[in-house]
């Protein structure tokens, strides 16, 4: 894949890229299908339940059935909604979530785009999704949805910044924004992975990432017990499915990004284990992060809006800045 990226653009190459895009989309859809299943199972076990076990063997087809149901549902648009924006919002929320996956390196030769600014590309594009959410909340012409959308905007501003700044430490250590280079530099055992020297950055990144994902304990925009369903309260059928899809694709993307930035991507935790293909290691780390996110959901209550802002601005941002400072001093001393 990397070789192809360096070649001239020809029709064959374009076709390969297109095919690759479709394959990636299918992989992600497959992931989302089973991430939802996995989430429901994991949370079910943590909550003394069984989780889905009726549709298909072990309930494996449950999500497929759910998605089918969503797709064949009547497409309702509230009469007083802003029709164009209402239709546009789920699309705007979904597209960036899929596009950012391009920058994630799955294995040494397996990534869609070898960007020199991979990290920047990710954070810049992922910010666009929030516009979709705010639009959805606004266009629905529903008070709950509006509150959810506004919360989302406030939350995004408060957390995008610590998220970006917490990554800067890694970028400084590596000297590159290219995710492939960042992963390659973490070779040689888990003590070379970034999460150890960048432990503060890692902590800030995880908190900010969970918030970016709008997942428990930061699921304020769709806080069920307060705002009923938040920004997507008026959405149903496949438009709602798109919002859900965006959310889970971001889980996929954030897990991939965390694995690449801090957990050594495709690198083996011990050098003698490096005979196992990199993709396996990547998937293991990736799954662990995904599991961690689901685990949080089963454990945590929801934080309040003002506390969320306070945490973002008063705790995470100073911590992330201090992290940059310390990293800079360390790099200055060691040269």
């Amino acid at each position, binding site marked *: 894949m990397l070789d192809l990226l360096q070649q001239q653009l020809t029709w064959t190459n374009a076709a390969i890229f297109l095919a690759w895009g479709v394959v990636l989309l299918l992989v992600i859809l497959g992931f989302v299908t089973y991430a939802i299943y996995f989430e429901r199972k994991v*949370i079910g076990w943590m*909550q003394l339940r069984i989780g889905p076990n009726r549709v298909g063997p072990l309930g494996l087809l449950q999500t497929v059935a759910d998605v089918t149901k969503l797709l064949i549902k009547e497409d309702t648009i509230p009469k007083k909604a802003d029709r164009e924006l209402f239709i546009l919002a789920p699309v705007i929320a979904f597209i960036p979530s899929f596009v950012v996956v391009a920058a994630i390196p799955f294995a040494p030769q397996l990534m869609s785009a070898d960007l020199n600014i991979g990290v920047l590309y990710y954070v810049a594009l992922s910010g666009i999704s929030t516009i979709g959410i705010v639009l959805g909340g606004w266009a629905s012409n529903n008070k709950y949805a509006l*509150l959810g959308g506004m919360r989302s905007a406030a939350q995004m501003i408060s957390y995008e910044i610590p998220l970006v700044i917490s990554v800067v430490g890694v970028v400084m250590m590596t000297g590159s924004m290219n995710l492939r280079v960042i992963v390659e530099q973490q070779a040689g055992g888990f003590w070379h992975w970034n999460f150890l020297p960048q432990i503060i950055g890692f902590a800030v990144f995880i908190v900010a990432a969970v918030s970016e994902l709008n997942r428990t304990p930061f699921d304020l925009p769709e806080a069920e*017990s307060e705002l009923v369903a938040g920004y997507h309260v008026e959405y149903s059928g496949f438009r709602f499915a798109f919002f859900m899809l965006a959310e889970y694709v971001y889980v996929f993307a954030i897990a991939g990004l965390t694995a690449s930035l801090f957990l050594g991507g495709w690198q083996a935790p011990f050098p003698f284990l490096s005979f196992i293909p990199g993709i396996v290691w990547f998937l293991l780390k990736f799954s662990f992060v995904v599991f961690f996110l689901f685990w949080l959901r089963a454990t*945590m*209550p929801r*934080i*309040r*809006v003002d506390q969320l802002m306070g945490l973002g601005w008063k705790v995470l941002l100073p911590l992330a800045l201090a992290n940059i400072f310390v990293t800079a001093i360390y790099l200055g001393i060691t040269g």
Partner: protein
Amino acid sequence: MIRTEELLLNVGPQHPSTHGVFRIVVKLDGEIITEATPVMGYLHRGTEKLAENLTYTQIIPYTDRMDYVSAMTNNYVLVHAVEKLMGIEIPERAEFLRLIVMELQRVASHLVWWGTYLLDIGAMSPFLYAFRDREIIINLFNELCGARLTYNYMRVGGVKWDAPEGWIEKVRQFIPYMRDKLDEYNNLVSGNEIFLARIKGIGKYDAETAIAYGLSGANLRCTGVPWDLRKTQPYSLYDRFEFDVPVTTNGDCYDRYLIRIAEIRESLRILEQAVEQFPAEGEIMGKVPRVIRPPEGEVYAAIESPRGEIGCYIVSKGKDKPYRLKFRRPSFVNLQILPKLLVGETMTNLITILGGVDIVVGEVDC
């Protein structure tokens, strides 16, 4: 032109966190509430009016449906009032059975509150843990009277069903089990930073306000007033048992939470003693005339339900049906402080405070 506008938001009657068909109309300035008006009556069934055309025994199932989370205490308050008016002697075994089911009910009711409160705050798992343990109590009741929610268990003069063989033993085994689980709950939830930040200092009021609003139950005791009818006006057999009334002084949601958890422990203490002293034999019905005709007069009987003071006021004209019957429902009375507490709070705190009051809409609307 940019201008700001107040947002009039209808919370309920169909809302996940109003615990039934309860509605509050709030005016929002951003996320801050400037005015809140509870709108009640969506579940009004006219129980008190219906009761005027029912014999006393027929009213009992209606009381089940008021506070459906704590039906046993509701049963008791009615039969207690009638017994008080008629001066009926209750056999000891029957009174013990009543007391045991009432305390089990208190545990079950607080468990429901605990679970749903955390669900309101956004934690999903505790709800299922609470319902796992409540299920044991429900099964005990099921074994006793064949119903899981609306028991219709008590009668004027005693109880309808005797405890089946081994039932008391099961209650005995439940006590240490529940204590264990309470520790687990505390480990899981009580120290959680987010949880504490959400409920500490929220929905605060002082003892004077609480008394002025006629609050009772945990809503009153959280302000430092040690008012528990089981202690202050002992009914049933409560004067025979040793137990404490948990009291805290901060008057916020966190204190109400602590009190309810502590009350589960106290209930278990009472149960432990009651199971020990349970008479091995005896009648379960006192000497009651076939047709219950209380003498002419009025009576007010109040007991401590899990939600506070539940009272039953009966005016009898000497007929087999009450001339007038009135329930003092703690959920309804406790709810009246809500508009005062909500002003200046955020939308999120609305849910926290409403949940902390612990209402059951069936009882609010009656």
